[in-house]
C-alpha cells in the first residue's frame, strides 16, 4: 500500500486517501477497505459505525497510519480492529 492510494469502504460511502501506512489491514465499518468497491456491500459493524467526517485526518496511537477522509460515510475507520482517531487539523481558508 502506497501513500496517495484512494481506498473505498465495503460497508458505507466512506473514501479515504492514504497519507501514511504500514502493513496492517485498513478497515471501515469493520470490513477491509480496497481500491475498488465490492459488488456486494459488507454489513456495517455496530462497533465501527460512528461515521467519518469529510476532510478529517484519522491516525493511530503509534503514528504509523494516517488517512484523510475524502468522502464521508456511516462507518468508522480502524486498522486490524483498532479504531483510528481524528487528528487535530488546522482550518484553512478557501482563498489566499
Amino acid at each position, binding site marked *: 500500500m502506497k*501513500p496517495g492510494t484512494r481506498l473505498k469502504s465495503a460497508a458505507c460511502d466512506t473514501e479515504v486517501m492514504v*497519507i501514511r*501506512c504500514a502493513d496492517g489491514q485498513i478497515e471501515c465499518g469493520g470490513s477491509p477497505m480496497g481500491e475498488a468497491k465490492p459488488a456486494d456491500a459488507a454489513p456495517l459493524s455496530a462497533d465501527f459505525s460512528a461515521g467519518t467526517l469529510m476532510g478529517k485526518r484519522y491516525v493511530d496511537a503509534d503514528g504509523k497510519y494516517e488517512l*484523510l477522509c*475524502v468522502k464521508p460515510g456511516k462507518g468508522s475507520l480502524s486498522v486490524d480492529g483498532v479504531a483510528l482517531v481524528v487528528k487535530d*487539523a488546522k482550518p484553512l*481558508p*478557501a482563498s489566499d
Partner: protein
Amino acid sequence: MDQTRAHPSHSPSGQCGPALPLARWAGRQLQAMAHDHGLPALAALSGAALMGERGSNNGYTINGRISAGLGGSRLLKTRDGGWFALTLIRDVDRELLPALFCDAGFDGSVEGAIGAAAARFDCAELVERGRALGLPVASADEVPVTPAVEVLMQGQNRGRGPTASYGNFAASPARPELVEGRWRSAGADTLRRAQDERRWGKFPAQFSGHRLSGHRPLVIDLSAIWAGPLAGHLFWQAGMEVVKVESRSRPDLIRRDDPATFDLINQGKANVLVDFASEREKAALIALIRRADVVIESSRPRALKHLGIDAEALVREVPGLVWLSVTGHGARGEAANWVGIGNDCGVAGGLSRAMAELTGEIGFVGDAVADPLTGITAAREGLAALRSGMAQRIGLSMSAIAAMALAEERAHDRAAIDAELRAWGSSIGAPFPHVPRRALQAEVRAIGADTARYLPELAPC
C-alpha cells in the same frame, strides 16, 4: 482613465519594471463602480495600485516559475508536458507530499526533489490527487469549472421583509432606489427612518468621503489575507461601516506576515475578535450578522459550518442581506472543497499559459493576481446586489475571475494585454513595477478594539 501602459513604469529610485498585466482591467472596474453608483472615492483609486502595491511596497522581484514575495507557489513540469502549480505555505501541507507523489520515502527538503517527483506524473493526476488532499494546486491548462460570479440563492427583498415591528405607518417599507445618481428610499419618510435607519432607511445620499448622512450600510468582513479584505476595503472607501471579524485562535495571518499591506486594506474597519470555540460568542456574532447589509467570507463550506454559521439560512431569513462567498474554485459542488490561493488560481485561470504562448516561457503573472482581481469583482457584485435590495448569496471563484478578466481584457485591447504579458514574461529578475505608496486615510484599529461596541452581549455583567 488608464492606470498602466505596456511600457515600463519608473520609480523615483530609478528602478523600473514592466506594467502589471490586467491592472487596466482593474482600473476599469473601479471607474465603472464609481460611475454606476456615484462613488467618487472609488474613481480616485488606481487599478495598478490595488494590484501592485503589495509587490511594490515590499520590493518584490519577478521570479518566473517561483511566485513573487515569499515564493510559496511553484510551477512544475509534468510527465505529459503540462505545468502543475503547487503552493506550499503550511507545514501541514508538506506532510501531504508523500501522498501527493505516492512515495512513502519522499523528502521534500532535498533540493530538486519536488520537481523530480512532479515529472513522474501526468498533470491531471497530480491536480486530482492534490485537490482531494486539500492542497492548493492547479494546472496551467485547466478550465475553471464554476462561473466567475454565481448567485447561489436568493432570499427576500429588503422592501418585502417582516413588517410587524414597524407599526401602523410602515406596512410596506420601501427599498432604496437610485434617483439622479443618489441612493434614496422610494417614498422615504422620516418616521420610518427613525424606527430603523439601518435596514429600511435612506441609503446614504453621498458615498463620497466620510461625510455621510442617513443610513450607512453595515458590512461584516469575516475573510482573511487579501481578496475578501480588499472587497471590504472598497466598501469602506465607498463610505460603508465595515467590521472586520477575526478568530481568537487564528487571526488574519497577513497581520503578522505583511503588516503594511494589512494596514492598507483594513484601515478604517472596526475590529472584532471572536472565540469560535464559545457558543456565546458565536451567537453574538450571528446577532451582529442579522443586523448587517453585507457579509464577506472566504471559508470552505465545511469550515463555515464548523464555525456554526449557516450562510443560506441567514440569507433566507434576513431581507436584503448580501452574502459574498469568496472561494478558490467555486462555492458549489465538489469544487467548493478545493483550496486555492492567489497564485495558483491565476494559473488555473489560464494567465500563465497565456503568457507562455507569447514568450515560450511559463511563469507566474503578477503577485497573487487572482486575489486583487477577486476583491474588486466582489465589491462590484456586492454593490449591484445591495442596490437591487434582494437578499442573495453570491459565489465568487478566484480562478474563474482570473480567466474572466483575461478574456475581457483581450476583448478590450488584445494588443495591449499581449504586450504586457510578453513584457512580464521577459522580465525575470526585474523588480515589480513601482506604484506610489498609498497614505493611510484612517486609523488601523487594534485587534479586538471594537468587540464590546459591536457585540454588547459579551460585556461582563
